[in-house]
């Protein structure tokens, strides 16, 4: 199968993109065609993954990709149409028609469009694309096969540990049966300031979440997420939510007001699909 620039352009027009959106659409399509993203799985699975696209670098500002209020929609043409263009390519060019090749049991609204930008202007942290090996002045899109966003609330705490403890408690049992290849963690304005005010950078956030989202095998078996009889050692034997702290993608984005942030579980296993970052070329 080949995905030509002409076919991408046709679908981008149908989605309502402007011509200047095209480089970002092309980069995202390159991302889902990368073997590490593993199109076959998230393109067909009953797990119903969307393509979460996280935009970094100058292109986010140039194209007015929203990084603030109503992060996941509605209100911004770029966020709505770029993601829609990618989904149309998936169904019209790759054949991932819902109910036929795309067998998502439930799907989710992000399968229509799931585009956000990182709020680099206000973030105290290293941008996602720089952490993943790109220069700050480069523009990129990170594509992640993803379930819907889970919002959490904490307005009581004024420390990083407090906010992240709430987040970890929400995340511990989430996503698929046995953890996910990646999680995106979207920290909005109030939480961003609270967490960074405690001296936490993204590396510290990842380490805290990794250590505090482990679940005992006994709990997983009691709640019928893991097969087999409970053995005495299962009470202390733990399963981490992801294989490595680096599998958490930390993103500063969302509105300034409101003690809400979100996490987005990835799809499948690390062998099946991993987040991929692609440079946007003009």
């Amino acid at each position, binding site marked *: 199968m080949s995905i030509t620039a002409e076919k991408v352009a046709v679908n981008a027009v149908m989605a309502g993109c402007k011509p200047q959106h095209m480089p970002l659409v092309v980069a995202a399509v390159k991302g889902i065609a990368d073997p590490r993203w593993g199109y076959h799985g998230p393109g067909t699975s009953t797990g119903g993954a969307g393509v979460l696209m996280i935009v970094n670098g100058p292109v986010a500002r140039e194209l007015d990709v929203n990084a603030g209020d109503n992060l996941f929609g509605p209100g911004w043409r770029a966020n709505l149409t770029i993601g829609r263009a990618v989904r149309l390519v998936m169904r019209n060019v790759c054949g991932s*028609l819902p109910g*036929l*090749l795309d*067998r998502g049991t439930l799907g989710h609204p992000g399968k229509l469009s799931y585009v956000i930008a990182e709020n680099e202007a206000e973030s105290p942290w290293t941008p996602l694309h720089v952490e993943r090996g790109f220069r700050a002045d480069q523009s990129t899109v990170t594509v992640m096969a993803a379930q819907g966003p889970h919002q959490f609330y904490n307005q009581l705490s004024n420390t990083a540990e407090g906010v992240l403890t709430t987040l970890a408690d929400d995340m511990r049992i989430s996503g698929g049966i046995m953890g996910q290849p990646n999680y995106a963690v979207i920290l909005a304005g109030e939480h961003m300031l609270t967490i960074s005010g405690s001296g936490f950078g993204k590396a510290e956030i990842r380490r805290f979440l990794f250590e505090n989202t482990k679940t005992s095998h006994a709990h997983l078996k009691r709640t019928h997420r893991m097969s087999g009889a409970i053995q005495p050692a299962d009470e202390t034997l733990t399963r981490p939510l992801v294989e490595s702290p680096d599998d958490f993608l930390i993103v500063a984005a969302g509105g300034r007001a409101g003690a809400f942030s979100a996490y987005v579980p990835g799809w499948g296993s690390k062998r099946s699909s991993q987040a991929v970052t692609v440079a946007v070329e003009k």
Partner: protein
Amino acid sequence: MLDGILLEKAGVPSASIITDVFELTGRAMAEQWGLPYYKFLMMSHPIANLTETQLDQRAREIAPEIVKLLLQGQG
């Protein structure tokens, strides 16, 4: 399903088994991968929550079909 299709394309006889709710998806996948007449086997859905005894029974029932398909080939 895809593993079976890829094995068959590499010249290795295969017998893919899917559950019946994926029949149309299996056929569409075979077409997408260039083997529109790829033969595969089906059993009733679901299987993930079957007991070991039930699963053994399913295996016994479908084993002759697997042997037949592997010997007969896709031709």
